[in-house]
């Protein structure tokens, strides 16, 4: 009886969350927690944010459920397409920093998601959950379409735990997305490029493209 009970519980443990079925995570950037950064130090402008592109090498999933041997068992997906998740996060950040988002912006933003991945590493006593969210943003002056700034942004978050199910994975991916957004918000070169472009336009200069 004891052996049967033990076996049942161990099976439940090691197959935590039904390892053979797809997991779908509700990954998103909580706009209520969006912070202000150096991006808020410039006068408010309007950005037009185009649809983002999913440029990942594997667009079918954001990770794999793994067993304790590290073998892939089932897919991990997101409820929304990752390019929409990242685009919405960028829009929330712009608004939280006092800027407007809509048609006919002063600047146009294009973006592509280059990595959005959840990984698991089984250690001796703990399991490490690792989230990575990378994207590239390009900002163009309107209406000329001149490229003002381009940069790749990375968000990385990991946590060690004795175990965890989809709620933990979601938290890790949300945190890595938040860190990526933070790197945009804290990018002082971006702020300098936007301020410089705005200043030159105000002076009526012919604004050259970015390097």
């Amino acid at each position, binding site marked *: 009886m*004891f052996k049967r*009970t*033990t076996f049942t*519980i161990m099976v*439940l*443990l090691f197959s*935590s969350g039904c390892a053979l079925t797809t997991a779908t995570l509700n990954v998103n950037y909580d706009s209520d927690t969006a*912070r*202000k*950064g*150096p991006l*808020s130090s410039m006068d408010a402008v309007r950005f037009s944010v185009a649809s983002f592109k999913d440029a990942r*090498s594997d667009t079918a999933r954001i990770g794999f459920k793994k067993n*304790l*041997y*590290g*073998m892939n068992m089932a897919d991990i997906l997101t409820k929304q397409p990752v390019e929409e998740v990242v685009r919405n996060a960028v829009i929330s950040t712009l608004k939280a920093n006092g800027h407007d988002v809509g048609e006919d912006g002063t600047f146009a933003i294009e973006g592509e998601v280059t*990595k959005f991945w959840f990984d698991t*590493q*089984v250690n001796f006593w*703990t399991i490490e959950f690792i989230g990575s969210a990378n994207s590239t943003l390009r900002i163009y002056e309107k209406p000329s379409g001149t490229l003002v700034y381009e*940069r*790749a*942004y*990375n968000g*990385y*978050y*990991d*946590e*060690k*735990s*004795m*175990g*965890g*199910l989809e709620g*933990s994975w979601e938290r890790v991916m949300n*945190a890595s997305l938040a860190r990526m957004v*933070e*790197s945009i*918000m*804290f990018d*002082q070169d971006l702020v300098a490029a936007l301020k410089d472009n705005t200043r030159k336009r105000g002076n009526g200069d012919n604004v050259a493209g970015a390097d």
Partner: protein
Amino acid sequence: MFGHKSFLTSLACALISCGPVHNEIRPDPAAIGNIRTIAVSFPQQGEFAVFNERAKANAAPAVAGMFGLVGLIGVAAVDAQNVSADGKQAKAFGASLEQVDCRAPLQSSFEHTLKEAKRFVAYVYNRPLERSETEGVDGILEFDIHHCGFRLVDQNKGEVAAFVELSAHMTPSGSRNAIWDDRESITGSDRYSLSTLNTDPELVRKEFIKVLQDAGARLANQLLYP
């Protein structure tokens, strides 16, 4: 009374519902609001490392699991080989740098960003704080730099980027309650193949310094924009 079933059920529940071993705490406006003066220390220089071959060894746990003790021995041998390969690469990159120092560029950038903002008065030290230095300030902040160097960021393309990993821990003076307790991992936005970096020492130096400077500014911004 508390039999085997109860014990195992409790254990299962505990393991499945377990939260992270470490809970992050990041600065928030309420906690930082009253702080004007901060004693800041960067006690460790950090270890310069390359995580490339080790990062590629994802199949190790599967191999060990499938082949038992033989697999474990094999994994250990492969791990040792990967560490050795990464170590050699780290030495090669180190030769490109005038000074392998995770701390100086990061500390300098942190100080500069804070100074420019004029929001805090920071007393910054590149050693552990002495007792007298923790008195008379509003907050005590320590950055522990773990590693800096280059790590694999795109396994498909075999590209690496500069990175720095550190921990931040801050308390109000006279209190043990952390108002900042987190690990930061900052990676450079540009990525290169090892072959490109091995033939361009100036690029290695430039990327290495840049990520440390970016990290210093970013840490300061965590305080300036809680």
